[in-house]
């Protein structure tokens, strides 16, 4: 029988990462969509960087940054008693940065595709930016929000390089499924590796299948 802890830990990591990213990405995307800030392109490029950067590069930089030997890590350790290297908290922060484009890109393109007159109409009806965002804009990009949530969750399930760098493989703390598979293979336990891999494969596939089914449906019914 395989150890279920890595599965549970992976699900917990993916869930927390998704929630944090949803909360962070909505205001971020609103700002990216409507602001006339000149250096916006730089920020958009930075957000998309994890899509092309090898996870080990990102993981390496985070490891350096989080290390109590260095300024940022020392600051966190001295003032907040928080350590981010080889801890679950560190894993969450790394996952948030790593999966950021998977949440931001669908929400941003959803907002950009809405006719600008929708927001303007709400303003002329006396509504604030916040009311307009929550009552009009977000409900009209439900499909994009859903895609963002699912893609972020699925992507966090599958991360390996960043986790290995920042988290290592501490049971019940940082040993997620992808790391567990790697270790089972290293110690020639192919049967266990097979079970872990099978679960991850089946789960990821069904999530993506659901996304596409829902998208096809919403394309038929939605105007925008």
């Amino acid at each position, binding site marked *: 029988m395989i150890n279920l802890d890595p599965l549970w830990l992976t699900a917990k990591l993916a869930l927390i990462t998704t929630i944090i990213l949803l909360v962070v990405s909505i205001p971020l995307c609103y700002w990216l969509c409507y602001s006339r800030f000149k250096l916006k392109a730089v920020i958009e490029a930075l957000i998309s960087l994890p899509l092309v950067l090898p996870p080990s590069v990102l993981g390496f930089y985070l490891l350096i940054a989080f290390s109590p030997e260095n300024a940022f890590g020392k600051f966190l350790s001295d003032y907040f008693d928080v350590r981010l290297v080889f801890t679950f908290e560190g894993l969450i922060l790394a996952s948030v940065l790593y999966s950021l484009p998977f949440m931001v890109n669908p929400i941003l393109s959803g907002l950009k595709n809405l006719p600008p*007159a929708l927001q*303007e*109409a709400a303003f*002329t*009806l*006396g509504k604030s930016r916040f009311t307009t965002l929550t009552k009009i804009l977000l409900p009209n990009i439900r499909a994009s929000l859903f895609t963002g949530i699912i893609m972020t969750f699925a992507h966090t399930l599958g991360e390996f390089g960043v986790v290995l760098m920042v988290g290592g493989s501490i049971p019940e703390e940082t040993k997620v499924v992808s790391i567990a598979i790697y270790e089972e293979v290293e110690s020639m336990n192919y049967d266990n590796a097979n079970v872990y891999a099978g679960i991850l494969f089946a789960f990821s596939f069904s999530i993506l299948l659901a996304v596409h089914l829902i998208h096809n449906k919403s394309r038929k019914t939605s105007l925008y």
Partner: protein
Amino acid sequence: MIQIDAYKMLETANGKLPLDISLTIEKGQFVSIYGNSGAGKTTILRILSGLTKAEKVTIKVEESIWDDSNKKFHLPIQKRSVGFVFQDFALFPNLTVKENLEFALSKNDSKEIVSELIELMELQSLQNSKPQNLSGGQKQRVALARAIVRKPEILLLDEPLSALDDEMRFKLQDYILQIHQKYNLTILMVSHSISEIFKLSDKVIVLDQGKIIKEGTPQNVFSEQKISSKFQITGEIISIAKSDIIYVVQVSSGNNIIKVIATDDEAQEYKIGQKVLVASKAFNPIIQLLT
């Protein structure tokens, strides 16, 4: 009284164009803005509503200042008492017709006005439908009703009827007239249709290349003063055909098509699509009593 002075550099397809206007509108007046595409008509509505900022602008509505660029004052859109009907309606797709209207209510407003408008605009049977299931004319009625829920001082209509067929247009023109009278609104409408302007407005402003080139009653602005006639209508040339030695020019006006004879020289000057005035001397028309 509404006083607008505005200067803004517009970025158009043909390069930069300065919009420079000064305009006074009396309370309760129905004013149309007429002009070529890209002349800056919509921008005037957007500046008045606060959706677009101008480089230099002062807007005074009755006693309150909405914009004063000298003092860097810009009243937020939300605080301006305007209703805006957008060219593409801008109905909220996630809300039903009734919810679209209710969205415009403030926290403590009574819902009475919503039911009143639903009745006035004959939307009862549609009130639970989503906007994507409505026809163009129905959407336009909802957009019009929604813009009035807050009982604004000024109603801004951006080519509200351009996407509709003639029958629907005439019906909606009547709705607009009804609303104008019932709620005593000041209305500013962008329109391409001279017959519509004649039917609805008290005053028309002709805009060309960002400047107001004419203003006055539709009669004065669109009619040639030198013709001393008792009978005149405006329309658009829809065909010019040669018939023996003369030309027959067909002019469409409202629901009618009028055939007018033209000489060779005259026909050379006309083009299909031109706006024209058809006038006749007093002795010419035939009068028949309608019983």
